[in-house]
């Protein structure tokens, strides 16, 4: 068979076109059938531009404070070092070191919560009031800047949150936090959880943890656990919304924040 150079080049050109067209044809054929999955928030989720908390110290009694701390521990499987571990399930549990306690929200004396406001002639009532302290979800959070893995980050709605999956346990965040709001798991917390709550994972040895402002409850349209049991002592709402309950409280009352002079802009206010 004799072939001219011309007809050979024609055939080669058509073949090359065919090869080039294959991916394009495939893309057109598949684009109709495969839609991408869609990820959304629940309709009932509570939203804010910047979440904040107002604690009314006048309504805070010892009993209320205790209920609040307990509710938080239960909601998030926070270990309680006073709990005696089940000897059968966790044999050979070493004795605890109370200084390694895990704290999300806890009672603190006034002079420790507000060291700059301590005064010789301070009203006696303040010295004995229970003060509750927790993560301040600072606007300029130093822990977020310190974290080398972005495990601690600031969510769009102002919550300073931890991604436990990324935490490498370096504890830079603990050094950066001026409020001592972060705790390191020096040991497996599970033996010290009285009753494990299946609605929230525990943590493991080697990660840092802190208050998450109940991000998992806000996503379901529920108030944070502390606010729910606080009998009005704790209000959580949107600081950027002038019509919100927290703003109303701040407009009507004198409120202070912890270590304001450091410029971290805490989002937790205390009505005195």
């Amino acid at each position, binding site marked *: 068979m004799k072939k001219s150079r011309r007809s050979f080049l024609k055939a080669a050109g058509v073949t090359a076109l065919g090869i080039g067209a294959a991916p394009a044809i495939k893309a057109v054929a598949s684009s109709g059938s495969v839609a991408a*999955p869609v990820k959304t928030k629940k309709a009932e989720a509570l939203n804010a531009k910047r979440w904040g908390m107002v604690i009314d110290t006048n309504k805070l009694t010892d009993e209320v404070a205790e209920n609040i701390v307990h509710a938080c521990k239960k909601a998030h499987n926070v270990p309680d070092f006073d709990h005696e571990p089940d000897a059968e399930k966790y044999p050979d549990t070493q004795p605890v070191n109370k200084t390694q306690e895990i704290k999300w929200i806890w009672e603190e004396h006034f002079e420790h919560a507000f060291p700059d406001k301590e005064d010789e002639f301070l009203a006696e009532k303040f010295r004995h009031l229970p003060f509750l302290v927790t993560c301040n979800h600072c606007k300029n959070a130093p822990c977020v800047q310190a974290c080398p893995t972005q495990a601690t980050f600031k*969510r769009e709605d102002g919550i300073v949150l931890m991604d436990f999956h990324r935490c490498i346990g370096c504890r830079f965040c603990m050094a950066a936090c001026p409020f001592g709001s972060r705790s390191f798991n020096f040991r497996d917390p599970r033996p010290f959880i009285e009753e494990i709550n299946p*609605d929230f*994972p525990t*943590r493991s040895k080697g990660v840092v943890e802190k208050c998450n402002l109940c*991000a998992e409850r806000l996503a379901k349209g529920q108030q944070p656990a502390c606010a729910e049991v606080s009998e009005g002592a704790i209000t959580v709402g949107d600081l950027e919304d002038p019509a919100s309950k927290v703003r109303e409280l701040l407009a009507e009352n004198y409120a202070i924040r912890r270590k304001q002079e450091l410029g971290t802009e805490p989002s937790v206010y205390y009505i005195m």
Partner: protein
Amino acid sequence: MSKNAIMAGLVVFVAMALLPFWYNIGGSSAAPEPELSEKAKAAQKCVLDKYDMRANHMSLLDEWRDSVVRDADRLYESTNGKTFQMSLSTGEESCLGCHTDKEKFCDKCHTYASVDPYCWECHTTPKEINQ
């Protein structure tokens, strides 16, 4: 003379080279058969196609946790039309809410493949809690 020695040497060599295969004859373990729970059977469909799940469930879980923890998105509308509340271990629609028996499902494959996800140091399984 040397022919015999070479033949004998060859036979020994081939036998040695094939030793690993002799050794494993009959002893090879069968492919794992993860058991679907009654609940999963009733639901019929997983998040993705069966084969896609088999090959890619690790990356799906990775995607889920980033969405939930970092983007605050908790609902996942799959390409198969079903909507899931993205979770590994909490709630009825989570992986374990449907694949209720971790030992008979996840662990069957994982033990076979010698993978030991560390997720369970924190995420809980219903069994463990009821113990």
